[in-house]
């Protein structure tokens, strides 16, 4: 299948500066279909900024992003979601004053049509939300409680559920297990593998090397706003990656 040979996502020389902070400098990388791709780098290396460019929050100041074979110019996160990119942001992008189920279905609400008016189907959403959450969380939060009341890890679980719950071509996860406990982390890793097996591509940002080596097929490394190298996971070692991150080794 030729379609499966073209990369799902390519960035070409993407650059973005905030005032005089050059957060991204000519970042070029590719992401294959059906794979888990990891993106690693120091704090402040620009990983989240790159994610925000791909998911339509920032627009790159220069460079091109090609998704699913077509050059994209997302003007808003809605465009990116419509194109098939779901993102778990590092700041989680939850609305604290809304309930768990409202957050899970934000902008994806289930409605019942009554003639010309479309009313929310709260029951359906709550039932579905309960299912979604219980696959991940150990201390299951009530889906009707406000997100403000959840613990750090519970929030992260909700954000991951949301991204996983809607079929999409690419799921981006920005440090999804940073605040999670052992059991929850194991479940999220299971979920990520499950998503991959269903054919989704995943972009995983993580500071947890063991996790990256365990899950991913490809690793990209960023340093100080630049993409300094990529390796097939099978062909590299943790030491090599660390060397790339610290700059001890340059491509």
């Amino acid at each position: 299948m030729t379609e499966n040979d073209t990369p799902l996502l390519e960035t070409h020389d993407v650059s973005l500066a905030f005032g005089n902070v050059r957060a991204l400098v000519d970042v070029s990388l590719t992401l294959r279909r059906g794979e888990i791709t990891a993106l690693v780098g120091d704090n402040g290396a620009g990983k989240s900024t790159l994610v925000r460019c791909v998911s339509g929050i920032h627009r790159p100041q220069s460079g091109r992003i090609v998704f699913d074979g077509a050059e994209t110019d997302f003007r808003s996160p809605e465009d990116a979601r419509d194109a098939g990119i779901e993102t778990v942001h590092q700041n989680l992008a939850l609305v604290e004053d809304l309930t768990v189920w409202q957050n899970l279905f934000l902008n994806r609400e289930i409605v019942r049509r009554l003639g010309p008016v479309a009313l929310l189907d709260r029951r359906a959403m709550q039932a579905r939300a309960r299912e979604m959450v219980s696959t991940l969380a150990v201390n299951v939060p009530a889906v009707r409680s406000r997100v403000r009341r959840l613990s750090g890890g519970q929030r992260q679980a909700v954000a991951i559920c949301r991204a996983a719950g809607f079929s999409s071509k690419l799921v981006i996860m920005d440090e999804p297990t940073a605040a999670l406990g052992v059991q929850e982390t194991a479940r999220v890793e299971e979920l990520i593998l499950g998503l991959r097996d269903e054919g989704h591509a995943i972009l995983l940002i993580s500071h947890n090397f063991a996790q990256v080596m365990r899950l991913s097929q490809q690793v990209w490394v960023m340093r100080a706003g630049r993409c300094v190298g990529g390796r097939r996971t099978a062909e590299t070692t943790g030491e090599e990656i660390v060397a790339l991150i610290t700059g001890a080794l340059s491509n």
Partner: protein
Amino acid sequence: MTDRANATLVAGDGERWAAKLKDVGFWAEWAALVGLILLVIVFQALNPTFLSPGNITSMLLAAAILIVLAVGQTFVIATAGIDLSIASAMTLGAVVFGQAYTAQWGLALSAVAGVFAAAVAGLVNGLITAWGRIADFIVTLGMLSAASGLALILADGKPVTIIDPALLTLSTGRAGIFGYSFLIAIAVAIVAHVVLFHSRFGTHLLATGGSPESANAMGISTRRIKIAVYTISGMLAGLGALLLVARVGAAEPASNTSFLLNSVAAVVLGGVSLFGGRGTIIGPVVGALLLTALVNGLTLLGVSQFYQPLAVGVVVVLAALLTRFQR
């Protein structure tokens, strides 16, 4: 991986109500109602006319305009905005209505023109806030000035008397103890409730108020939401204008400032946070009734005009104290 019994699992539906009633937060959400009931009890004890059918009717009638405005204000405040121009937009709507009516456009068309003018003022607020990224406060403060200026220009500073049988029915007719104006206001509140809590738009609106960044990240166009809420607020100001013209029988370019502060006060008394993201409709409606009942009661009791502002201030703060446990 089934649920396990654990500390954080919240109890089922049956126990939920029991728990709610024990929760101070639950009572706080109804603070305005509790305040209203206390107020009614006190006034009724001091003056038995207070709960006479005639007085109830006239209180509810007097509250109608404020309810409509408070509902509009709630939409705006739920997105963490504030519409300072709501009373001026009402003035503008009233004047346009009056001018159209004197220009023989006929009642229906004139009414549409009035609502339209106020809605346009709201739309402009929304467009400038959304696209200009200026603080809501300053945009609507500018519109407060601009809309009342426009109203003065259009009316040439003069009131227009409007005598129309249909309007007279609107302002004086009633079903039982409920005047038509009040029934309209309640209908508006019910529709608003459904929109806020049972439509996608309502959820998106609350999300925009709660966390614009998160809402944006989920693909909600917070700009479109902002534009929509200000237009709604403007439209309701226009509806308020019709009720006002019907009530006083004239379209005046007067500034109506008391409606502005009262509309915001009703919303805040109703337990809606000015920081956005949460809200109810019933709260502001009760808040509006509370404020109206307060002035009515003080007048009935013959409290001196100098003591009235003091009494109003104290009662407003006391009513708000009931909401102290809210979070």
